[in-house]
């Protein structure tokens, strides 16, 4: 356990730029854009009464006010979406390099001179991709969303309506990030085949890891499509593309499961009159009822095991 803590720290030292700074910079950009437009908006209102943008001072009360607070407290995490999308790239490229960089610069000889098993090393990288990186991103995303939310409330306040009290009292404000964090297990299970595939390629390829990781499934799909069309053999190429290629390349995208299982789990918030975040939460956990996620988990674990074996047996230098 102590070893694992240090292995994770090690990964953070090495990849701080990718894991922390990349999402942080994106978040800062979004914040700057959002705050900029809020401030600019206010500016117009106060200085130019003839402007068509001018709303002047309004006081919103009653049901309308409640609806606004409800919507805002449920939907404010939407501002974090771009940051969460960055997560897919971070996880993808982190995994591609995880077992290849150390071989390329030969530092693997140093890591292997320490009493740390190949299993713990590879597992620390899996944990980083599936737990640490998502939590860091979610943290940054939450801070960003809260910042924008409060800035928006501040802008509304400038127009005479104070939403702060109601907003801070709204349980959704606190529940929304927690619900997202509660989706982490779903994310882990759906991202496992991608992480496993990328780590396996990373442990095998001598160079050009990206080409191997992306090229192999794409060429395989093309061949299958060709065989299906030209030879009229009963292969279902599109099944291969959607069930295998998508799963090993796009599994690290947060929310990918909604697309993968779109035909099976529908977002029925209209029907059940549930709030949107709650619907997503329930539907996401609902995807775990299907078989396909578990097949992916099995494949992912097998590929991670292969990566461990490769790191143990492969010769360097």
């Amino acid at each position, binding site marked *: 356990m102590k*070893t694992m803590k240090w292995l994770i720290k090690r990964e953070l030292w090495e990849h701080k730029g990718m894991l922390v700074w990349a999402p942080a910079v994106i978040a800062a950009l979004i914040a700057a854009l959002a705050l900029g437009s809020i401030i600019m908006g206010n500016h117009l209102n106060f200085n130019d009464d003839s402007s068509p943008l001018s709303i002047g001072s309004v006081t919103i009360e009653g049901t309308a006010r409640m609806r606004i607070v409800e919507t805002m407290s449920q939907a404010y995490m939407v501002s974090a979406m771009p940051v969460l999308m960055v997560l897919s790239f971070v996880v993808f490229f982190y995994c591609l390099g995880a077992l290849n960089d150390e071989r390329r610069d030969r530092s693997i000889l140093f890591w292997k001179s320490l009493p740390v098993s190949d299993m713990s090393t590879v597992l620390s990288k899996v944990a980083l991709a599936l737990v640490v990186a998502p939590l860091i991103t979610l943290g940054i995303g939450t801070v960003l969303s809260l910042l924008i939310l409060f800035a928006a409330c501040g802008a509304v306040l400038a127009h005479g309506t104070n939403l702060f009290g109601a907003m801070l009292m709204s349980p959704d404000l606190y529940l929304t990030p927690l619900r997202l964090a509660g989706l982490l297990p779903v994310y882990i299970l759906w991202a496992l085949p991608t992480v496993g595939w990328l780590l396996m390629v990373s442990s095998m390829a001598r160079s050009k890891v990206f080409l191997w990781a992306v090229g192999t499934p794409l060429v395989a799909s093309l061949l299958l499509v060709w065989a299906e069309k030209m030879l009229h053999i009963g292969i279902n190429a599109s099944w291969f593309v959607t069930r295998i290629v998508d799963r090993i390349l796009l599994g690290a995208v947060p929310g990918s499961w909604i697309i993968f299982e779109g035909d099976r789990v529908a977002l029925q918030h209209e029907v059940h009159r549930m709030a949107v975040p709650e619907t997503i939460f329930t539907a996401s956990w609902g995807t775990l009822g299907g078989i396909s996620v578990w097949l992916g988990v099995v494949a992912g674990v097998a590929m991670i095991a292969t990566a461990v074996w490769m790191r143990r047996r492969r010769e360097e*230098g």
Partner: protein
Amino acid sequence: MSAVITAGNLSKTYGKQAALNGASFTVEAGRIVGLIGPNGSGKTTTLKAILGLTQFEGELTVLGMDPRSQRDALMNEVCFIADVAILPKWLKVKDAIDFVEGVHPRFNRSKAEKYLANTKLSPNMKVKAMSKGMVVQLHLALVMAIDAKLLVLDEPTLGLDILYRKQFYQNLLEDYFDENKTILITTHQIEEVEHILTDLMFIQDGKISLAASMDEVGERFTEVMVEPQFVAAANALQPMSQRTVFGKPIMLFDGVPRLQLSTFGELRTPSVADLFVASMKGTYA
């Protein structure tokens, strides 16, 4: 004295090329052994086998363990510096110390810090910003602070200037080595290690061609500056090699009694380098 390493009939091929071809040897505890051989003779493969970094055929026991199956446990007792400059570029001095302290049960932090205090390395320095010599200093500081039973060095001073090289071996001898430790070292810079070695192993074409303590080497091999009138008689004793210095032939003999040779001329103990050249004759021919 128990054997730290026992190797029997080690074999390993890369494709059709044999890297190890039935090498057998033992290394006793408390020795500094030089494994010396020409390029491609199987030195590095031998070290990799000992460290569990490669698969091979034959029998090999290191500190009572099989490096193929018990590598993780073995690494508690064994340290190695493989080549120079294999520390990752992004690593900071303080992080390196923290990490090794965190994962190695036999690491003594104060020892490493004491050693680093005598260098120009500062805690926040990254490997990227270090010269080759400094990287080796950092690596040596980490390794010397680990109380390992066996230290394996593969060309540890390759590409370093003479100041770093001398300091490296001096530190190794003065601050690290004791009777409980064993050091196995390969290098091409024979002159620089020969005075610190206690044992010598020559490896040629994947086989051990000579394994002896330095004392035995001194007894067994003799170099004679033969006076001209004794050249024919000396040649009859089949010298290993012969070269000419100042017009006089210098012959290297294996196993001929010194008393007998002393009649031919001036005697001396050959340097390891001379011995190496003589015994590897024809390697690249």
